[in-house]
Structure formats: structure tokens, C-alpha cells
């Protein structure tokens, strides 16, 4: 229970369904936070909802693992010009690993969360994650890391509901979180200090050159570590002419190369740390797979070839904009996630 409306309603629904429920808030982050899972006021909200629902509430501290698996790698990656998605890593290592194991250890069959996604059982008995009923709130992208073992021990009670329905139910139940605003961004990055403030306190941010295809200086940036491939603004480029984008970031050389949009286009992307929900897709043409390259990006038709156990090659039908290294590409068959991975460095 993050202290938000989704997990509040998830708990209420499980209780109404006759489950024996205990509320847990994960204490992951000790530093500054606007919202997310970790501030005292969010824990207060979670606890007060649990009290309203008549269930016990516990706070479990996993800040060591959060630091090790999420914050540390996030900082390191920026130092190498890679832009990771910390929410994916939190789901992989915290919510659906450490928490799941702790819950299992203390006797629970299942962990339920307030994510907007669904879990469907296929005719062969395997499970797949599927998009939430509310397309605008769908969180299946950040949950692709769930394999069969995790899917079998997870419930997503609000995945069938729209956000409006969730809020209406919270309102009807008199839950204090009914009108609480959605959390938006990475929980450990505050809106006041931003990514620059956060990373600047943990690493040296260095100014960088911005050069064109011919290597001529065309602009500059204060912090080369904060530039993401595909970025257009904040590169100190003169106005006018054809729009130019960051097409390559070389942190070691403190240089950002810019080019026109066509330089960003690519036909394929190699993925590492690939997780398949069940089995990898078979070889040969497959017309039903789509690849989604950001949390709310449009899925694009693609051919997928599994390489070894945890790599894959995704070939787009036609070209599409390159995805920054470290970002996740999630593979769907219709509304169902079949797997995903991270754009190889």
C-alpha cells in the first residue's frame, strides 16, 4: 500500500472478496521525495486506510536493496550515458522479488498491488500480464519483468477498473485517499531539485560539447550525463533550420552528437536482460507482435527473435526512432505482454 488510491481500493476489494489481508508499505527511500512510496505522509495515508478497512498495517524497510538495485545502478548508468527506467528495476528487485519473498516467508500466498494491469490465464495454464482496462493508466509496460513464478503469486485487483471507477469506489467506501493526486515521477527525484539536483549530489556532472555530423561545435550542455538520445531541447543549438536531435552521447569524451531525425531512425534494436513471460516466441515470421518503447508510447509491429536465454533482436516493420540505451522495450501480443528487455549498451 503506497498510500495512494489504487492500492487502497485493491486492499478493500480483496477484503470484500473474503481474503485475509495485511497492508504493507515498503520503506525504500530515506531521502527527499515529493510523493512515491516513502514519505511519512504517504505511510500515514496507507496506515489510516488500513485502519478504516480493519486490517493490520506494517512498514517493511527494503532501503538497502533499493539502494543496491535501483538508486546505485541509476546513478552509475548516467555516468555511462545510459538512461535507465528505475521503476522497472524497482518492480524487478523490490516489489516482485524482495517483497514477494518476504510475504511468502511470513505465510502469504499472494502479493496484491494497485497496478493498472491484469493477469490472464492462457488455455495451456500459463499466465500472462495484460494491459489494464484503463488504457491511459496502463502500467503493464513497467511490469514486464514478471515471469511465471511472480505472476502466479500476484493479484492486481484494480486492473479491470478505470481510474475513475477506482476513485468512485474509494469515495463510496469513504477512503481518505479517494481524491489523492496520482504520483507521476520517479519517487526519489523531487520536482524542486529534479534529476539534475539528484544526480549532481551523487556524481560530478560535466559540461559537454555538442557537435554535428562533421564534428563541428554547434552547441553545448552543462551536464553531458543528463542528455538522452532523441533529446531535442537544451542542447544550446541555434534556432531555425531542420530540427536536430541528440543521436549519440559519449560521456567519456563529454560529447553529444546531433543530427536530423533520419539519423535517429533505426530498423532494429538489440535487447539484453530479456524476460519472457512464459516461452520465447518461436522462430519464423510472426505478424502479431508489437514492441512498445516507452511507458506510454505507441506499440509498433515488429519481428522478434530470441537470442540465447536472455537476449533478443527486435526488427521493426519500417523504421522508428531509436530508443535510448537502458530503456525497456516491451513486447506485446495484442493486449498481452510476452516479454521485454533493455536496450543493449
Amino acid at each position, binding site marked *: 500500500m503506497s498510500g495512494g488510491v489504487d492500492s487502497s481500493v485493491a486492499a478493500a476489494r480483496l477484503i470484500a472478496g473474503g481474503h485475509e489481508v495485511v497492508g504493507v508499505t515498503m*520503506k525504500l527511500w530515506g531521502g527527499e521525495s515529493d510523493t512515491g512510496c516513502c514519505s*511519512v505522509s504517504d505511510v500515514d495515508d496507507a496506515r489510516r486506510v488500513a485502519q478504516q*478497512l*480493519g486490517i493490520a498495517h*506494517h512498514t517493511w524497510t527494503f532501503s538497502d536493496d533499493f539502494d543496491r538495485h535501483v538508486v546505485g545502478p541509476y546513478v552509475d548508468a548516467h555516468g555511462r550515458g545510459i538512461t535507465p527506467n528505475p521503476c522497472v528495476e524497482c518492480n524487478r528487485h523490490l516489489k516482485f*522479488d524482495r517483497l514477494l*519473498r518476504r510475504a511468502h516467508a511470513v505465510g502469504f500466498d499472494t502479493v496484491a498491488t494497485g497496478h493498472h494491469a491484469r493477469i490472464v490465464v492462457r488455455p495451456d495454464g500459463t499466465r500472462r500480464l495484460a494491459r489494464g482496462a484503463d488504457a491511459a493508466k496502463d502500467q503493464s509496460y513497467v511490469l514486464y519483468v514478471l515471469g511465471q513464478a511472480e505472476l502466479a503469486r500476484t493479484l492486481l485487483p484494480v486492473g479491470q477498473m478505470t481510474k475513475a471507477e477506482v476513485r468512485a469506489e474509494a469515495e463510496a467506501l*469513504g477512503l481518505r485517499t479517494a481524491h489523492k493526486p496520482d504520483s507521476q515521477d520517479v519517487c526519489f527525484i523531487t520536482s524542486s531539485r529534479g534529476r539534475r539536483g539528484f544526480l549532481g549530489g551523487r556524481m560530478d556532472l560535466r559540461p559537454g560539447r555538442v557537435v554535428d555530423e562533421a564534428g563541428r561545435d554547434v552547441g553545448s550542455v552543462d551536464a553531458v550525463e543528463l542528455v538522452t538520445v532523441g533529446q531535442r531541447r537544451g542542447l544550446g543549438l541555434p534556432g531555425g533550420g531542420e530540427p536536430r536531435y541528440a543521436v549519440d552521447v559519449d560521456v567519456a569524451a563529454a560529447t553529444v552528437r546531433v543530427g536530423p531525425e533520419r539519423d535517429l531512425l533505426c530498423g532494429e534494436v538489440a535487447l539484453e536482460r530479456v524476460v519472457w513471460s512464459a516461452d520465447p516466441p518461436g522462430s519464423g515470421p510472426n505478424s502479431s507482435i508489437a514492441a512498445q518503447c516507452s511507458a506510454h508510447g505507441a506499440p509498433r509491429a515488429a519481428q522478434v527473435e530470441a537470442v540465447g536465454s536472455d537476449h533478443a533482436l527486435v526488427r521493426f516493420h519500417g523504421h522508428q526512432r531509436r530508443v535510448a540505451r537502458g530503456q525497456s522495450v516491451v513486447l506485446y501480443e495484442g493486449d498481452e505482454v510476452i516479454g521485454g528487455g533493455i536496450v543493449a549498451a
Partner: protein
Amino acid sequence: MAYPAPVVGVPAAGCETGPVPEHDRRDRLTYLDHAATTPLRPAARDAMLPWLGERFGNPSGDHRVARAARQAVDEARDLVAVVLGCRPGDVVFTSGGTEADNMAVRGVHAARPGPVLCSAIEHDAVRNPVRSVGGTTVAVDARGVLDLDALGAALTPDLTLLAVMTANNEIGVIQPLAEAAELVRRRAPRAVVHTDAVQAASWLDLAVVVAGADLIAVSSHKVGGPQGVGALVARPGAPLRPLLLGGGQERELRSGTHNVAGIVGMAAALRAAAAERNAAATRVGALRDRLAEGLLAAVPGAVETGVGEGAPRLPGTLHLCIPGIESEALLFLLDEAGVCASAASACASGAHQASHVLAAMGIGPEQGAGALRLSLGWTSTDEDIDDALRVIPAVVAHLRGVQDRDVEPAGRR
């Protein structure tokens, strides 16, 4: 799970309280967290009730109702002075132990700016104020006892204040306060000695034990009085500035209308605790020893924290480090079984934090991960120990089992 599924009605909109309080759902409660708070003593309750009912009054007023309240506070002050071995005029009533500690550290530093020292295992109510005035800490040994050699080396003639707790709240180890105070007298005669006697008050004769301290903090609810009241004893001549400015109550040291019911309740609790102190220490100490022996025998690898060299401890506290488990999971399952215990360090959000006390003793995060504090008090019984000895080893064995053969090991990807 041990208790039946909750009866969940759908709370009406705006409903402020949950349905059935958890503790009412259990057949039996085994309360082993007296160091966090101990139940209200009947004597304290009886003393308070009139002040929660027909009696009232602001002790600072100038009429019969006020005078009656004043008399109650004065009599309470006399009682507290007898128990703590000070003059009534030395007692400053506060909102609790934390305020008393803050007042000691910040009040002395404000009156006499200069270097401040405290032991490395002080409660946060001392540690954080000491940090706020730029103070530093003095090491403890592996038993959790203040290192007097380190203290001697740290003392300087310009020292303003040394804070050494009478006994530690997590591990119960009694500190060499008299020796520390003696060192200060010789090497830093200008310095004030403060002791946080919050945990010791139920068990030790403070009139004797803290005789060498200039300032003494006590808390009501740790001895069976109500929460929200405490006292700082300030010997004559101790330089002290108030934290709160206002009407000038408590000899200008602690402004604010007196908490009459609380003060009366604290005094009654302190007197009751003192009256039965020796018998309670013997009785509860025997329970604690039986619990310790039973757990050390039944939980492989469990180590009693800081007792290697037989450091003196409070009779009510047992602290263990249990390898191969995590405190949070242990406490969860103990709670499910009706056993209330603690890992001894928590923050405002309820989350556990690594203990600075264990760290100061050289106990690493790995070893300290399975920390368990069981603390007994005036209501503890043989049955409590039976329950604990039945439940704790079984829960530890269960956790070690599931953690060893986990369904899907960590870091699989």
C-alpha cells in the same frame, strides 16, 4: 494466520475509526515490549482519576481551585524528589523523557556554550540534540559499556556537558555513570553531567545510582505512569536555559500549564515502582533469565547481545541477535502469534532502521539484521515466558526454512 479474518464492514463515509481493534481479536496477548511502554499501574490510575473527573484547576492561579491543583503538583513533586534522591525544588516537570533530554543538552549548551560529549549508544533524544550543538560521541566496548579510557582521552577542561545514559534502552546494559562522573569532576570540572535514566527508573535505585549526575531525565510511561509526562532533575547550580518561553512555570525553566493529572500519575507510578523495586527486580530478572536460557538453547546460533564479559544489565531487558533471519519478518510472525516484541529501533514512519547501538558495539548489519528485543515489566508472568519460549523458536525455525529453500531465488535475472 493466528487471528480470524477481520469483520469488515464498509465504513461509512467520513468514518474515523476502524471496525474491531486488533488486540481485541486475540485470545491471549504476550506483551514483551515494556521498554517501549509499560501498562499503567493501578496506583497511577487511581491518583489520576479525580483529575480526569471532578477535580481540575490551573496550579498557577490564585483561588481555591487553583490552590488545590497546586497542592497536588507540589505533593507529586515531593514524591518524585524522594524517589530520585533530590530536592523538590530540583524537579522540573516536562512533557516526557525526550523533552527532559533536549532541555538538558540544549539548555546547558545555551547557558554555557562549549564542547559537548555523549556516549555512542545514547537514545536519539540525547544523540540528536548533542549533534545539533556540534557535540561528539564517546565509544563503547563490545559489551555496550562506555569506554572509560576513551572518555578520559576525550575530556577537555573546557567541556560543557557529558551525557551518559544510566542504562541503555535497546540492550539494557547499565553504564558506569559514577565512574564517568568522577572522571569529569577531576578532568573537566566545569562540565555538567547529564544522565537519561528513562529505562533505569523501574529497576534501579536512582537516588543512589545517579547521585553523581547533575541532570537526570525520567519518563512517566516507562515506570507505569501515563504517557506525555516526564521530569528533568536539575541540581542546584546546574547552568540551564529553558526550551520553552512563556508563563514561567517550573521556576522559569518550563513554561506551560501543568499537566496535573499526568504529574500526579507519574508520581504515584514512581512511588509504586520504588516500593516494589527489589522484589520486582528479583522476580522479573528470574523470568528474563529463564527466557534467555530457553531461547539460547532452542534457537541455534542466537547470541545474547553484549553479555560476553558479564556487563550488568537491567532485569527486564533481553536483546538477542538471531542469525539467518530478518527482524521485520520475525516481528510480523510474532505479532500474528500474539507476541509483542521489538527490534528496538524504529523511525516515525514505523520502518526499522539499522541500530546505532549495535553499530557502536561493532555488530555489523548482517549480524544485527536479526535483532530482537524482549523487554519485561511489572505485569510480566511465567505464562508470558512460556508463550515466548513456545512461539519464538518455532517462528525462527520456520523463517530459516523458507528463506533457505526459497521458491524463486533473488537476483535470478
